[in-house]
């Protein structure tokens, strides 16, 4: 379970998050919607531990520990996975090497045995196949020369292999066509289960047609201003974000 309490964060002098309160129980998928500049991406970066964001108040408890003090890799080992809005290119780093290094680092931290090359490749190939990707995906350099859709597929491949307990999707749908959107949705839906939860951050309702959320939250000016069932997303789509502060 993820529990965010009164989270304040800023970039430089500018306060972006001004007291976010949010609970995502295991097994649930929550959507966070909101206008540009509401603090959606900041929330995902603060949760995953990127530099440049200063938490000034509050905490984020995941599985009983405050993750805000952990290094990014320790958060990953704890089961948090951030699907990037703009996946980073790593020239010279092969995808298979990258995935295996990541998987084994996490397994090590969890006290599990590391996978040898053969066992890893078997798993990776199965994941590649189930995501309808070409096998040469594993040989290419991480995200280098990938199309937008391929990058998102690669994020889903990583998620499938790393098996996180909490996935944070940071506007993963931006700039995607409908096919790519489905890949992302399939990736998330495949992991659905009592021990998996997700925070789906999006500006548009359309992704939520494919990943149906249990709860929709509206983030505006650094605070959650409304929460409701999945129908809230449709309402927002119809009426926009104007007037939310008042609500």
């Amino acid at each position, binding site marked *: 379970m993820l529990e965010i309490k009164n989270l304040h964060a800023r970039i430089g002098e500018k306060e972006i998050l001004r007291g976010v309160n949010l609970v995502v129980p295991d097994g649930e998928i929550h959507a966070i919607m909101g206008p540009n500049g509401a603090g959606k991406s900041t929330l995902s970066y603060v949760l995953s531990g990127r530099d440049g964001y200063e938490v000034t108040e509050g905490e984020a408890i995941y599985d009983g520990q405050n993750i805000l003090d952990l290094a990014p*890799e320790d958060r*990953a080992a704890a089961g948090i996975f951030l699907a990037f809005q703009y996946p980073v290119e790593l020239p*010279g780093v092969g995808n298979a090497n990258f995935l295996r290094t990541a*998987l084994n680092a996490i397994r090590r931290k969890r006290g599990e045995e590391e996978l040898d090359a053969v066992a890893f490749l078997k798993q990776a190939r199965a994941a590649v196949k189930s995501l309808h990707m070409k096998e040469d995906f594993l040989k290419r350099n991480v995200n280098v020369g990938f199309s937008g859709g391929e990058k998102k597929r690669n994020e889903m491949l990583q998620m499938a292999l790393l098996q996180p307990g909490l996935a944070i999707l940071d506007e993963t749908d931006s700039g995607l066509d409908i096919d790519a959107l489905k890949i992302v949705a399939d990736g998330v839906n495949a992991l659905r289960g009592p021990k998996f939860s997700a925070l789906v951050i999006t500006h548009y309702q359309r992704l939520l047609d494919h990943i149906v959320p249990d709860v929709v939250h509206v983030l505006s000016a650094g605070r959650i201003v409304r929460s409701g069932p999945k129908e809230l997303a449709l309402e927002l789509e119809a009426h926009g974000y104007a007037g939310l502060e008042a609500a």
Partner: protein
Amino acid sequence: MTALPTRKLEAWRYTDLRQLASIEFAAPPPVVAPTLPNIDLPRLVFLNGTLAKELSSPFEYVHNFQTIAEDSTQPLALINAEKAHDGMTLHVPAGVDAGTLLLISYAAGSVPFAFHLRHRITLGEGAKLTLIEIAKGEGVYWHDPVIDISLEQGAKFAHIRLQDESREAFHLATIRARVAEAAAYDHFTATIGAKLSRTEISATLTGTGALAHLNGAQLLTGTQHGDFTTVVAHKAPGCPSRQTVKSVLAGTARGVFQGRIEVDRVAQQTDGFQLSQALLLSPGAEMDIKPELEIFADDVKCSHGATIGALDAEQLFYLRSRGIPDDQARSMLIRAFLEEALEPVTQPEARALLEEAIDNWWVKQ
């Protein structure tokens, strides 16, 4: 002795040999127990600058050392010509694939000493050779090798060097290659050792379709100074040349890359490319780059690129967000950074040797 070059010479503006000049170098002492790499390949071993026959394997194309007149104005090559008393003379006859040879220089002594190896390598028409050169040692010494290379039509020479000298040593290498029509010179030097080093390579492309590939990786730390200087002279039409040089600098190390592409009037359809990139890992490190183009033909494609910066924070975060610890993530990014320069090294023993050297370097950081 010919005077050492000073920084007043444009070619030496970034490398100061005053600390070398202040040392008195004795004649090389005998070596007692060399530590030699364990690679299963035919080898020539030089101990403190003298061929150690008992440690070398027979290689049928190696001949006795020959002194050669030096007609250049390169100060270090002139000094070498005055002092050299040993070296490898290697000739691979036309059409022969001589396989892979290991050339090892090991140096050790308790007082400062100097040695000046002079190697000459010629490949006849269509001949092939891979040479893996390793320079290692302990103590204070000055190793000043000159390697002259001549490749006849269609010959292919892969030249892979690991400079892993003592951290107190001076290594100043001059390598000169003449490459005839359709011949290829593939060079890679990894600079890891020596207190001060310079690898100066010139490749002259004299026939159509001659290729030069001059790559290097410098991994420096502490107060090390590493200089990688190249000149590719295109003197015939239609020759490609490629240079990729990567430097990783920790501590207060200083890296230098000077690379010049010269295109003669006759060298139309030249395709010259040069890339120099440096990673600074700590605040005291310094990188100086001087990539030059000197072009006298109009129908050419020449370019160079240079970047200097720290490790990319975005990439580091991406790796860490996937669970890879900071240290391992950095090492992966450094390996990836070097990969482009290492690409032409395909010979398995050479590849393994270099990868191990790079990983060891990182572990010590």
